[in-house]
């Protein structure tokens, strides 16, 4: 069935149309969707695809059309049209659905009691907005990136002077007084406070401690550069002090990529003087220095969550570094997985939407085999140095190089979908992925991964091959996407779903060891 919908003299911007066309194409039974302006040549393309309908007669270049080829037993043009305008209105509702103050001062007039501003404007304009917010006595969560380090330092110094938080720039997650900001999961309220300089790392810790029965008082983001020499950890220090002063918080967790040594020393000194226990996961930070400060070093994000929960419950604190399965059962899973592979399948591929989760994976796997990346552990392992087509690769698809002109892959899975097509081939043995649920994330990230894996299995099946896919889900049963159904969708495609990123990485490593060395 082929049908068209038209709107005379209607204009939609191209970014909106691109996203909407993609969403419509995913509807059940839809084979092809063309949406655009009815120029002569665009209509010629419609004709070429044999999608012409009488509605398109007489349209001109300033008229808008959607033409769709679909299976009418599964959907209808009315459903497509409805979905189109729903998507359009969904986008517009952000600006038209309710009063949107045009300036910060009018926002404060509208909501006089507000004490926090969330700022997400292009980076070059962000500093001025933050300045205004701090001057108005507001804490700030700055989602924008591309803010200069000089501006970041100046604004954070100003925030410290005023006793305010300036979370960011490029701050992806926070939960303040129970309100999730930007990318954040639905976590029960509790007594553990987190200060995080890495977005998905913080999400992984918070979801893990929720699964272990813990709850959160506050989650304070700092932005990824906060623990650099230039910034000096101003916001992490501010955050720790806020949690120490917070009567509700009983245990403090600090998350970051490895800080600069001098900043680490400052953090350890504050941890040492903290009246509350402090758990520190600096992904490969100096465990001895952390212990010397009376704090608790961690092996993984999962381990950080477990230690925080143990401290809260007054239980013995121990390292969590295994896989939650009896060894015999684990070996059976590994043997079964490896048995599906052919001898020439020896490549590892990690495709991550969360950068810190990719970091955690590489830190562990990099000790077993060389791994190339766009965020390499050392310069010589940069993806540009990979000779030839094949090798062990782990990519952070949320990096700027992959998100220019398109949404972050946690919002729109299309970027990773394309990488599944272009990077998974007959040499790939193990594919490792993350699935991040929560507010701000795509409505069904697990479904998108499952669809891609189905395509991979079909494609490789034609040459008599299969691959092993290992995944973890960063999310809770309270998240809008539903953890249980997300897990089910992955498992239905034969994906090995592990309870944490750390365990998924360890399982991937065990399988690769068996592939490469037979052990």
């Amino acid at each position, binding site marked *: 069935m082929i049908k068209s919908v038209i709107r005379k003299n209607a*204009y939609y*911007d*191209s970014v909106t149309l691109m996203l909407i066309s993609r969403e419509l194409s995913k509807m059940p039974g839809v084979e092809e969707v063309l949406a*655009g*302006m009815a120029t002569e040549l665009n209509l010629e393309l419609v004709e070429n695809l044999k999608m012409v309908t009488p509605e398109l007669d007489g349209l001109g*270049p300033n008229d808008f059309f959607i033409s769709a080829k679909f299976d009418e037993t599964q959907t209808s043009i009315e459903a497509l049209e409805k979905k189109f305008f729903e998507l359009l209105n969904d986008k517009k509702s952000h600006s038209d659905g309710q009063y949107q103050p045009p300036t910060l001062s009018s926002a404060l007039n509208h909501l006089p009691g507000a004490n926090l501003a969330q700022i997400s*404007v292009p980076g070059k304009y962000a500093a001025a907005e933050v300045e205004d917010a701090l001057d108005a006595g507001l804490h700030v969560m700055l989602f924008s990136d591309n803010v200069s380090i000089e501006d970041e330092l100046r604004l954070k110094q100003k925030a410290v002077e005023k006793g305010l938080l300036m979370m960011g720039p490029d701050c992806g997650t926070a939960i303040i007084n129970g309100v999730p900001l930007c990318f954040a999961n639905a976590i029960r309220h509790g007594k553990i406070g987190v200060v995080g300089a890495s977005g998905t790392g913080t999400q992984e810790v918070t979801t893990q401690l929720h699964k272990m029965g813990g709850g959160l008082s506050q989650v304070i983001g700092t932005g990824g550069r906060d623990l650099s020499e230039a910034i000096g950890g101003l916001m992490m220090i501010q955050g720790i002090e806020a949690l120490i002063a917070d009567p509700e918080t009983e245990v403090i967790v600090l998350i970051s990529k490895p800080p600069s040594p001098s900043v680490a020393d400052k953090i350890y000194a504050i941890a040492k003087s903290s009246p509350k226990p402090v758990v520190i996961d600096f992904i490969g930070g100096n465990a001895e220095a952390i212990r010397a400060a009376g704090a608790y070093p961690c092996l993984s994000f999962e381990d950080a969550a477990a230690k925080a929960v143990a401290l809260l419950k007054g239980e013995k604190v121990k390292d969590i570094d295994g896989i939650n399965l009896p060894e015999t059962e684990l070996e059976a899973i590994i043997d079964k997985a490896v048995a599906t592979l052919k001898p020439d399948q020896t490549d590892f591929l990690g495709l991550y939407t969360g950068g810190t989760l990719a970091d955690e994976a590489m830190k562990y796997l990099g000790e077993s085999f060389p791994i190339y990346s766009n965020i390499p552990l050392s310069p010589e392992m940069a993806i540009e140095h990979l000779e030839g087509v094949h090798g062990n690769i782990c990519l952070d698809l949320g990096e700027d190089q992959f998100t220019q*002109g398109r949404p972050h892959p946690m919002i729109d899975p299309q970027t990773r979908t394309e990488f599944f097509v272009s990077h998974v081939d007959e040499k790939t043995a193990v594919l490792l992925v993350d699935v991040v649920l929560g507010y701000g994330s795509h409505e069904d990230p697990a479904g998108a991964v499952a669809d891609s894996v189905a395509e991979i299995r079909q494609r490789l099946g034609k040459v008599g091959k299969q691959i092993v896919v290992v995944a973890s889900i960063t999310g809770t049963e309270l998240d809008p996407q539903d953890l249980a159904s997300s897990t089910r969708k992955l498992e239905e495609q034969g994906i090995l779903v592990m309870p944490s990123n750390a365990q998924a990485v360890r399982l991937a490593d065990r399988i690769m060891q068996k592939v490469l060395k037979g052990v």
Partner: protein
Amino acid sequence: MSNVLKVVTIASDLHSLLTKSSPLQTRLHSVFDHAINLELDDSRLITLLDKHRQIVPLGIQFASLENLRSVEKDSKVIIEADGITIAGLSYQLDTCSAEVWDPTLPLSRKPRSADSLQNAAEQLEAFMRSKGSNGLTDLLSHIGESQEEQGMVGANLYNEFIADTLFDFIELLAASNWKAAVLQSKKIIGFGPGLTPACDDFLAAIMSVLVACDIPYAPSFNSQIVSMAAGRTTSVSLNMLTHAVEGRLPRPYQQLLAWAVFETDLDLEAIAEAAYAVGSSSGADFSFGLFCGLRILSRMDETIMEGEFA
């Protein structure tokens, strides 16, 4: 609500028009999140922008458009040098600290040599490849291949449809076969998704690089392209092409073109990133057109440039 609108930047062509001819009677043509188009009687568009969009020819950029966004399509709008009346409400324009921006290329700079143009094309190609698939840049890998070799593996529907036609157009221009290229442009203008179809962004780049490099037949060629475009593309895109005939471009495109044709210390990456931020794939399509334009120039010799336009 304030009745003063702070002007951040105003294009010099609009500034001149308002100084000489205001008040201008216009009709509200289209409203987007960060831009509003006003249509003059002669179909030219004046574009009101907020600070999230870069200035364009016949454009005026305000600190915010919030006060203006509630007006309905086809409303009468009167704009003059110091004020704007929209839906019966009058606003004063505060231009005291506004930048007046010239949308044409400053031709006083030293042009690149032929070798340097080739080098600029290579750098631009490397940048586009580093950005991955985006609009027409999918076709980068297929330039210079025979049609049998092309195969178009992985290309989207639009690119698959237009590739051969586009490559033929490039070949005709490289051979300075201007007349045939104009005819071929009929099969390109207005094609592609978006309000400025991808091929129009491509053509805008080709036309403006010809003007910037002072190619003798560029003025005639460009004006024929625009004549051809009337009725074949959207009014927004037709306006863009009309400006490009004389080398007037949106600021990010202007800067990228300046980098491409002049000896300069400017940083390609920052400039090209800004161009890529235009539209969904418009910036990438323009970059692809600029790259093709540079390659075409490097293949023209002076004899061939005389061409067969007579």
